[in-house]
């Protein structure tokens, strides 16, 4: 049985509009995998098909040898933590109350969280360095802290996989790096496989073990590839270690813009031309 996530010939359409097509990926355990691409390339959609929130039009997702569409939502939630994009709350729940909701897949229908759940929640908060926020109202902490809390909530699910949708959006520069460093730490120490979507190619370069570079489909039906310039209309431009994927050529292919790759003290940075 293969450990990790296998994506086989996955396609997805929304209202007849093809968003994803011909995606084949194999994600191994124990790494940070970043999905990168321009707006509308379907990276969030792809992330949501991984934990069954969206049902693909074709193909399948296999996690640790089991097809995702044969698993119940709580089963998936025990295996995969998920942090949706930019969350807000109308109610001033305490941070601990929020993180505790991550325990849902471990709690039977007619029960509420117990002591053990509270412990796990507090450990998760410590893990993301937000232990001091436990009793603070969620509505009164900063955007960066909120992101950490939502990551802690996903960690409270005790997952093997952590899916993060744009964990750096709406955050300032310092908070962006703070969140990504925390993600790195979680992946290294806890052995959690992180799959996230990002906007910034340099973040992808600096914090990923593998990068999936995606492009936007031109909107035609998957079988309507008439012009022949792209024999495979699949979304994936390249998949592999960041240095191999993030080449100016691939970036040009994905984003349609020219960039320059600069090396400094063994680190690489992409600069637009």
């Amino acid at each position, binding site marked *: 049985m293969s450990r990790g996530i296998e994506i086989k010939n996955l396609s997805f359409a929304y209202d007849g509009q093809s968003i994803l097509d011909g995606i084949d990926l194999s994600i191994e355990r124990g790494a940070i995998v970043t999905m990168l691409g321009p707006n509308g390339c379907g990276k969030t959609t792809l992330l949501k098909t991984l*934990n069954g*929130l969206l049902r693909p039009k074709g193909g399948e997702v296999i996690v640790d040898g089991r097809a995702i569409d044969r698993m*119940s*939502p*709580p*089963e*998936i*939630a*025990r295996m995969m*933590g*998920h*942090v*949706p994009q930019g*969350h*807000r*709350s*109308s*109610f*001033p*729940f*305490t941070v601990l*109350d*929020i993180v*505790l*909701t*991550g325990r*849902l*897949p471990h709690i039977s*229908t*007619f029960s*509420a*969280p117990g002591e053990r759940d509270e412990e796990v929640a507090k450990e998760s908060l410590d893990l993301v360095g937000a232990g001091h926020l436990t*009793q603070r*109202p969620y*509505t*009164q902490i900063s955007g960066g802290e909120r992101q950490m809390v939502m990551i802690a*909530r*996903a960690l409270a*699910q005790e997952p093997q996989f952590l899916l993060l949708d744009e964990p750096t959006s709406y955050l300032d520069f310092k908070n962006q790096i703070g969140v990504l460093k925390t993600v790195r730490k979680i992946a290294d120490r806890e052995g959690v496989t992180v799959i996230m979507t990002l906007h910034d190619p340099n973040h992808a370069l600096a914090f990923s073990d593998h990068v999936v570079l995606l492009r936007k489909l031109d909107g035609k039906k998957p079988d309507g590839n008439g012009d022949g310039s792209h024999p495979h209309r699949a979304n994936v431009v390249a998949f592999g270690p960041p240095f191999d994927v993030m080449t100016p050529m691939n970036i040009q292919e994905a984003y349609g813009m020219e960039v320059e790759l600069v090396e400094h003290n063994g680190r690489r940075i992409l600069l637009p031309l």
Partner: protein
Amino acid sequence: MKIEYGRRWQIAVHNSSFNYKGMLIGLFLLLPIPAFLISMMIGTFPLTPGEIVGLMLARLGMDLGYPSVYETVIFQVRLPRVLMAMMVGSILSVSGAAFQGIFRNPLVSPYILGLSSGAAFGAALSLGVIHWLPVQISAFLFSLIAVGAAYFMATTKGKTPVVSLVLSGVIISAVFSALLAIVQIAVDEKSLQSIVFWMMGSMNTASWSKLESSLPLALAGCLGILILRWRLNILALGDEEALSVGMNPEKYKAIFVVAAALAASSAVAVAGIIGLVGLIVPHMLRMIFGPDHRVLIPLSITFGAAFMVLVDDLARAALGFEIPVGIITTLIGAPFFAYLLRATRAGGWE
């Protein structure tokens, strides 16, 4: 958007030792007991506290030779009314808290899905047109029909977005208000008076039989919400956040709406439309204890009961004549609501 309401209170509670908060919760849980005892002492029939205690002892087998009318007043008039006020207060508060959680908004009431307009129409239909249909049953049925219609209207492809629910609630309310207007035009003046009086909400026709008929569904609805209350925390975070931890938000929305609507409909059916209780009580509790539904729901039951029965004491005894209790709750509630609206910037509606 940051919601700042009750911040000082909340911080005061959160920063203090656990025991203090625990004690305060305990106090609120016990509130119905003194409220009950006080309310049993109050009424327009002249009885002294000594006589009332004596009558209660008489119930236990000691014959103290009081006239039978004393017993009737205490056990057939005052007791059912006090218990009904407590039941209605609990129901409206709990269903209010549940609806606020479902709608992720602290400013919605149990009537948001057209429940009150449906009930008003049902009551008017019985009072003015279809006389063989008991008003309680008619009000109950039409309030559920209204909620069901609003829910059905808002549901597309198995999903019931909160914003669609709010809008369909507005539409259904408008439809039933129009139907109510038609009934009001058609009926005579005396029936019209009964309809208006019913709509203002009152407990003055409380009786054991009314209490018995509304209790089973009220209890079922409240218990359902009580047992599943922690899940309201998850629903209150949003559909995406619920899905991401493996909860089917549509299923739980439906469960909570059904439970809250059943309970609220059975309360409205016996007491008429009592305004703003379902809004104020959960709100006050949230200001003091925070939004965690594990605490909020049980406290809504007890504090709602205590609040309602004390307000009803005012309604039935303050001036010596009966004031519809719905008028008092609305007069108390409206300024409070206005304050909340400003303090929370429309309740953080997204």
